[in-house]
């Protein structure tokens, strides 16, 4: 599904040498994987996530999503690929405050050709267990419910890949657990899930854990996860 080879990314800083956020990242993600990315703050997790999500371009290296080379794509093609193949979930939910749950969920369908956006949005809300909150505004929902609306929004275009940036970071433990259960369920239905977390216990729920430190990616094997947890 995803193939990265030698991805580098650095940021220019005025008056200082450029900051190398990612250096020579090689990563292959197969369909149906459930991956956690861990690492300290500022290690480049989010940058990697943005590159995987086609929101940012690598300075060098190749990135392929479903066989398409990101460096060959123009802005419009990138936007279309984000719409069709990727669903984003953010720590801050990013729901429109004055739009109802169903309107928020239907938002990505504005940017695609869909004949029945309302129905599809309601379907997506049902799949995250919010069938009785369709007309509610975000302020009328709990944090966990808001994040589930955001997940429904990520699912509404039926993408193969869900990218979640600290999806439980703003939630209490119980709600966080709910969200993780939802991700497990989605993964069982065949979706590829990649999520960033600080929480090692959450990371341990993934089938594969990647660690970024100082811009370098390393794989943590199962025994290590146990060790890290201990």
């Amino acid at each position, binding site marked *: 599904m995803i193939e990265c080879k030698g991805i580098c990314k650095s940021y220019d800083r005025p008056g200082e040498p450029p900051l190398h956020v990612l250096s020579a990242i090689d990563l292959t993600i197969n369909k149906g994987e459930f991956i956690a990315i861990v690492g300290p703050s500022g290690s480049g997790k989010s940058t990697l996530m943005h590159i995987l999500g086609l929101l940012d371009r690598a300075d060098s290296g190749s990135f392929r999503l479903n066989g398409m080379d990101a460096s060959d794509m123009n802005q419009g093609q990138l936007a279309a690929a984000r*719409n069709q193949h990727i669903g*984003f979930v953010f720590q801050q939910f990013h729901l429109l405050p004055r739009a109802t749950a169903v309107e928020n969920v239907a*938002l990505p369908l504005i940017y695609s050709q869909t004949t029945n956006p309302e129905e599809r949005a309601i379907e997506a809300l049902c799949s995250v267990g919010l069938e009785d909150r369709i007309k509610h505004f975000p302020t009328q929902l709990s944090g966990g419910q808001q994040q589930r609306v955001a997940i429904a929004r990520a699912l509404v275009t039926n993408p193969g890949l869900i990218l979640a940036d600290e999806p439980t970071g703003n939630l209490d433990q119980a709600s966080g657990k709910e969200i993780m259960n939802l991700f497990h369920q989605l993964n069982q239905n065949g979706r590829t899930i990649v999520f960033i977390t600080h929480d090692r216990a959450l990371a341990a729920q993934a089938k594969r854990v990647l660690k970024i430190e100082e811009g370098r990616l390393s794989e943590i094997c199962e025994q290590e996860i146990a060790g890290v947890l201990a």
Partner: protein
Amino acid sequence: MNWNRLILSSFTMMVRYKLRTFLMSIGVVLGVAALVVMRSYGAGAEQEMMEKVNRMFSASSLYLQAGKGGMAGDPAKPATSLTLEDLTAIQDQLPTIQAWDPLLVTSANIGVEGLNRSTSLWSNGEQGELVWGRSVVSGEFFSKADIASASRVALLGDKTALYFFGERDPVGLEIRIDGNVYRVKGVLEPIGTDPHGMDRDDEVHIPISTMMRRVKNVDYISGAKILVKQENQVEETVAGIHQILMERHVIQDHEDRDYSLITPEVVRWMVARMNRVFKVFLPVAACLALLVASLVIANIMLMTVKERVPEIGLRKAIGATNPQIAAQFLLETFSVTVMSGLIGILLGLAVMAVMSEMASLKVIISPSAIILGLAAAVVSGMIAGYLPARKAARMDPVEALR
């Protein structure tokens, strides 16, 4: 891209952000309303004035005025050099002249059975009815004999007649003009207010000879209206009149004339100039108001763009392209301005309805005013929406989502 949904969502947001929408729309609503009112009022005023002018001053009429000219109220002392003999000479020598009627106006105190009131006193010759295009609705116009004998007869404006006699027919009854008894010969056809704002239905007319000999005791007139037989003879007639008068008044070419000749062309130009304030100046003022309204909207939209940075990042993440983001913000601005424009047009029409009802002003609902109002709304939308839309579209999604 699903345009219907984008349009629907921008209208939904317009309703949900009521205060913001209100603040954005109020300027455009008022500006467009003002524009529509001024345009329509200007069109109405112009048409009304043109109708009056055409009636009083057709394309084949000339107005000869004693003195150098200038506007009414000019401090120059009244010119006394224009006489009836001048006019007779002109008619005798110029075959293109159909008829003429002298003008001499003063004000007088009119009294009937204890009612007294000062009003303007006009005078006519025997061709007055034809020359001024104004006849009587009851009774008769002055006869040749009335003029020849300077008889004490009078014609009343219909408002004057109503004031003094109520529903009674005044023809044959007596009135006093400055204490002297006159017999009412007829009631003049009502013609409303003239372009100077004078109520032409509240006045009294007497024969020119009576005015000159009995009322004012003068041997000059203040002017005359001259009818030319055919429109295309106006130019040669003007030249002929100049020649005759300069000879009779012994004026050299380099000297100032002691009369002025107003042609239909000059009259139309003067009317157009009077209407410029409605047709040009006030609409320009309204457009300036709209420009300010656009800037207010632009300001509010720029603030919402700032406030909605995460939303812009999110929309880009879920597949919006830069042009689509720009389109969304333009649409949001447009939906507000176009709606405001429509409300403004309705408000303008309502104001005009009330205005024409209460002030009995002639108002024309000109399609051009409505089109202008809508165009103004769309243009303000473009002015207001451009910068915020561009700013939103250019935002880096990674930065925006941070």
